[in-house]
């Protein structure tokens, strides 16, 4: 009998070992990515009436709504080719059994209508639970805005975010969020803004020197960035409400890589005033700066733990090649989190659990691999690689829902900005003109 026991325990151990080995490949960000996706059908909204020359608004609306829902990462989008021929524009036109059975086989149906009349765009939208014919309505919404392209996109974003909030475990969608970034398309590096999907790209600063590292304030009213002035690199401030640069305190030495605490109270940044670059923090209304690090070698690129504002991660060069470190926000309790290679550009996830960063894991002449985006669980230091040796990838930034990461990549030659789901899938290119770098995702 002893023999049986030994053989059985070996079997058991083998099963455990194999399941553990495969489990390491998974990354769970705790935001519903990786759970079973809701199968959603979204027929084009029915165009009821239209002023002449505004037909394109309906196309813009439909494309934007579809993209928002597809990009959300929590839906299995039922292909439009599977849909019934008659598309509903209002509840009385819906035959739920056509949608809940194959081929669309949808769990949820989003539909509605557009009316463009007298220069205003009216949209009615519904979300129906296709498997619950007794009481199908989950959501009914009505929107009215002046009829133009921007508002067609805005209404689509708002309706998409309502759907995502209802079906995505109560986490608000990001379709109305903005990205801030650096572009050289005007001839010099300036700060630009765009919608989260790459639409509506606008130049904010006109310094004519070099502007880098934009970081928008948590309330979305100001963008902190660093720029070359007559006093060297300074932390500068652009007011999104006033549409112009506003004053911010200047410091000695070079000052760059600003980062807002999530309560908007404090800005951490890197300064060379002591003759060595170190991390400092200063009140976001100005004041005296407090030095947080004290070490030989560069210290740069701070990012706050936005969940607690009690911790800062940053890049330190004290041991040679740059590594990611964390510390308490008063500079104590320094912990090195990467153990090798060239690790830069940390971004702390909204739930405080993960750091995204750029890492050349095996560094050295002839070593395999390039600069790729990684995500690390801060507590366990377990990491997962999200991009795989397509060009040089850098400057990841988390979306406020923690489901997406925006980053820069040279995968098509020139550096451009891409977004992806936080598991590395669904990569989308957002910019094409000039070189575009250092994307920063708004807090809301």
């Amino acid at each position, binding site marked *: 009998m002893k023999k*049986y026991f030994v053989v059985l325990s070996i079997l058991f151990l083998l099963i455990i070992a194999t399941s553990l080995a495969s489990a390491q490949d998974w990354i769970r960000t705790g935001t519903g990515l990786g759970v079973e996706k809701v199968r959603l059908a979204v027929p084009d909204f029915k165009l009821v009436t239209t002023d002449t020359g505004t037909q394109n608004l309906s196309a813009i609306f439909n494309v934007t709504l579809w993209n928002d829902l597809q990009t959300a990462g929590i839906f299995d989008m039922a292909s439009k080719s599977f849909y019934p021929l008659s598309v509903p524009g209002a509840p009385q036109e819906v035959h739920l059994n056509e949608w809940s059975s194959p081929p669309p086989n949808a769990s949820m149906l989003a539909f509605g209508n557009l009316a463009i009349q007298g220069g205003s765009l009216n949209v009615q939208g519904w979300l129906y639970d296709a498997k619950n014919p007794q009481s199908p309505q989950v959501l009914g919404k009505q929107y009215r805005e002046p009829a133009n392209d921007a508002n067609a996109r805005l209404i689509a974003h708002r309706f998409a975010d309502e759907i995502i909030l209802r079906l995505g475990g109560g986490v608000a969608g990001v379709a109305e969020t903005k990205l801030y970034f650096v572009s050289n398309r005007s001839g010099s590096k300036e700060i630009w803004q765009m919608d989260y999907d790459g639409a509506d790209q606008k130049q904010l600063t006109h310094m004519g020197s070099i502007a880098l590292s934009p970081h928008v304030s948590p309330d979305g009213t100001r963008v902190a960035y660093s720029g070359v002035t007559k006093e060297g690199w300074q932390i500068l401030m652009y007011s999104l409400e006033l549409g112009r640069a506003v004053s911010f305190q200047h410091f000695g030495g070079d000052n760059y890589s600003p980062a807002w605490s999530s309560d908007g109270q404090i800005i951490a940044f*890197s300064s*060379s005033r002591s003759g060595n670059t170190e991390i400092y923090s200063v009140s976001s209304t100005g004041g005296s700066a407090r030095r947080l690090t004290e070490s030989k070698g*560069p*210290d740069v*690129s701070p990012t706050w733990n936005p969940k607690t504002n009690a911790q800062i991660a940053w890049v330190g*060069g004290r041991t040679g*090649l*740059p590594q990611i470190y964390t510390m308490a926000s008063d500079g104590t309790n320094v912990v090195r989190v990467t153990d090798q290679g060239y690790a830069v550009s940390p971004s702390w996830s909204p739930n405080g659990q993960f750091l995204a960063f750029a890492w050349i894991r095996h560094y050295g002449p002839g070593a395999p691999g390039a600069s790729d985006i990684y995500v690390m669980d801060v507590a366990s230091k377990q990491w997962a690689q999200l991009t795989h040796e397509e060009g040089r990838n850098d400057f990841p930034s988390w979306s406020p829902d923690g489901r997406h990461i925006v980053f820069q990549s040279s995968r098509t030659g020139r550096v451009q900005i891409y977004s992806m789901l936080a598991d590395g899938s669904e990569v989308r290119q957002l910019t094409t003109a000039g070189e575009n770098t250092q994307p920063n995702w708004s807090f809301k």
Partner: protein
Amino acid sequence: MKLTRSQWIRIIVALAVVLAVGACGKKKVASAPPTPPPPPSPAPTASLTANPNTIQAGQASTLTWRTDYATDVTIDQLGKVDPSGSRAVTPAESTTYHLVAKNDSGTQEATARITVVSSPPPPQQTSSGTDEQLFSGNMKDVFFDYDSYDVSAQYQQVLQADARFLQQHPGMKFTIEGHCDERGSTEYNLALGDNRANAANQILAQLGISADRVRTISYGKEKPFCTESNESCWQQNRRAHFVYQK
């Protein structure tokens, strides 16, 4: 049907083997390839720089090279040379110097180009032009190794010469710009450039140059001197650069 004890054992062993083979197959994918036996000695490394890399006909430039692990080092134009060293050369025309370092396990090459300008630029007669030209003609830049802001012994000497010039011209103010090569991340290179500019500044301060004559700024990898993606170009970009302040 009832299985005998030995049949049971056979079935269980067979299952175990199947699982073990499956598990091993998976592991192979994840694990690194078997490491080859270590080579007798590491492959040689080599670097070669020329300072300045642009001269006028008749002037001299200094070639500096460094190799590790090499047993045989030659420079095409100079023949067999020491593993590390420097030598003044006076090429009559633009020349690319080519260094080959060899040992049993491999060969490493390095090149440095000296551009010879035939005629000197016409001198400017304005007084500020003269000061500026005097400054840029005498103040030699400091070059750095990759990801380093340590000033090597060679460039400590360069800074001593720079300091002597500055002491002879006490009215001159200047900026030290820290620069980096294109590799690595934008923000980290800004910080590294600041550390380079400050490293040069601190040595000048030790040599008696007053801090109020000096400003420092980092340009990271934002303003490269040379834009090709190769080591000889990167070398040119890893520097503390002196700029006359009007």
